């Protein structure tokens, strides 16, 4: 391989993924990449290195950001994208990690902006539009690697903070802090505040976490169409159990527990 070729490859790689700096925030080691494929993918790669404390992969933009089911997550510069690597997390916290994260995100948005952010079970953070419809402002994707003795959680978060414009296919479903309030926010302050709320929640009991989650959750008490294992069921959302499952009441009065599926307001 000639030196020129080497240089070309190096710059191509650099364009896709650029590590710039690291710093400490609330006891977590933050690795900052202006551009990255996906913070969750990088976190999974780094998590293999037997980390001892919290590490966060932070990026200004992602070109392959993804959510549930590997669905593309629009991640241009302006938004806040990070993945938190939690080595040796307890099983109790692991089960409710999406709940803990959702509550910390809603509290952060409410504290830093004037927006009344809410949660749609299990992992969507929404902003109410005209009192009736909702637009997504943030998303969560938790990926766990679980062995008998080892457990690592990766909490991936994308928040539409300072994104001014969305492509047509998203404009009816997504919004951002700047679009809602007209004001930009400081992404680092946002991350700092999130970490504080997240750490506080980890110390709480399952019951406390679920109670807090229910305060911000919008499906509870509503009639929904639930898609469970490809079947569509009409039901009313009844409650959440202490492991994070949603309980829905069917028309016949029977209450069933749902751990996986999608629910839409009917």
């Amino acid at each position, binding site marked *: 391989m000639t030196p020129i070729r080497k240089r070309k490859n190096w710059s191509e790689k650099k364009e896709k993924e650029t590590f710039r700096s690291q710093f400490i925030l609330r006891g977590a080691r933050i690795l900052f990449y202006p551009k990255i494929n996906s913070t969750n993918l990088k976190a999974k790669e780094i998590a*293999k*290195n*037997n980390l001892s404390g919290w590490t966060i992969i932070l990026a200004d933009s992602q070109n392959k950001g993804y959510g*549930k089911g590997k669905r593309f997550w629009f991640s241009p510069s302006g938004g806040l994208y990070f993945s938190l690597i939690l080595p040796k997390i307890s*099983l109790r916290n*692991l*089960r409710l*990690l*999406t709940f803990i994260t959702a509550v910390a995100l809603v509290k952060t948005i409410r504290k830093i902006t004037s927006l009344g952010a809410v949660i749609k*079970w*299990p*992992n969507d953070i929404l902003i109410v539009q005209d009192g009736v419809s909702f637009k997504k402002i943030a998303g*969560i*994707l*938790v*990926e*766990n*690697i*679980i*062995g*008998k*003795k*080892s457990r690592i959680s990766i909490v991936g978060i994308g928040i539409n903070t300072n994104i001014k414009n969305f492509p047509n296919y998203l404009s009816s479903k997504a919004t951002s802090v700047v679009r809602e309030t007209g004001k930009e926010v400081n992404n680092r302050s946002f991350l700092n505040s999130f970490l504080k709320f997240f750490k506080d929640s980890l110390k709480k009991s399952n019951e406390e976490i679920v109670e807090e989650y229910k305060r911000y959750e919008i499906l509870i008490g509503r009639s929904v169409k639930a898609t469970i*294992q490809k079947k569509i069921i009409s039901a009313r959302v009844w409650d959440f159990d202490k*492991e*994070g*499952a949603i309980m829905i009441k069917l028309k016949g009065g029977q209450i069933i527990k749902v*751990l*996986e599926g999608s629910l839409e307001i009917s």
Partner: protein
Amino acid sequence: MKTKIFLKDKSYNIEISEIKENLFKVRVENEDYFFSKDEFDKLVLIERRDYPSLESLKGGEIIPNLPQEKEIKTPIAGVVSKIHIKEGETVRAGQVVVTLVAMKMENEITSESYGKVKRVEIKENQFVNSGEKLITLE
């Protein structure tokens, strides 16, 4: 690779070899020690009592009988979204065997043992409770 080390005025002959993918042998004088990498690429010592079975298997599939359990169970409930291994295949410590989805969390369940898959106990899209058996190893 062969080398010699000195510890407190005593010398030891050391020989390190990779006898199979992810199975390393370290011979110290005439004693053999076996190691396998876990999911963090960290070398983990394989139990001493299993050495004879390792030594007698030459050429064929070397499956050390690890002291770990022969069952892979899930500590978390969820729906099986992907089974990554088939019956008859060998798995190494740290390998992802099943992905479970619950509350939009993707949980990659890994094997703690190096072994051959005897039976896959679950099917894709099946709901499993925490503590349920997913895989039986030989």
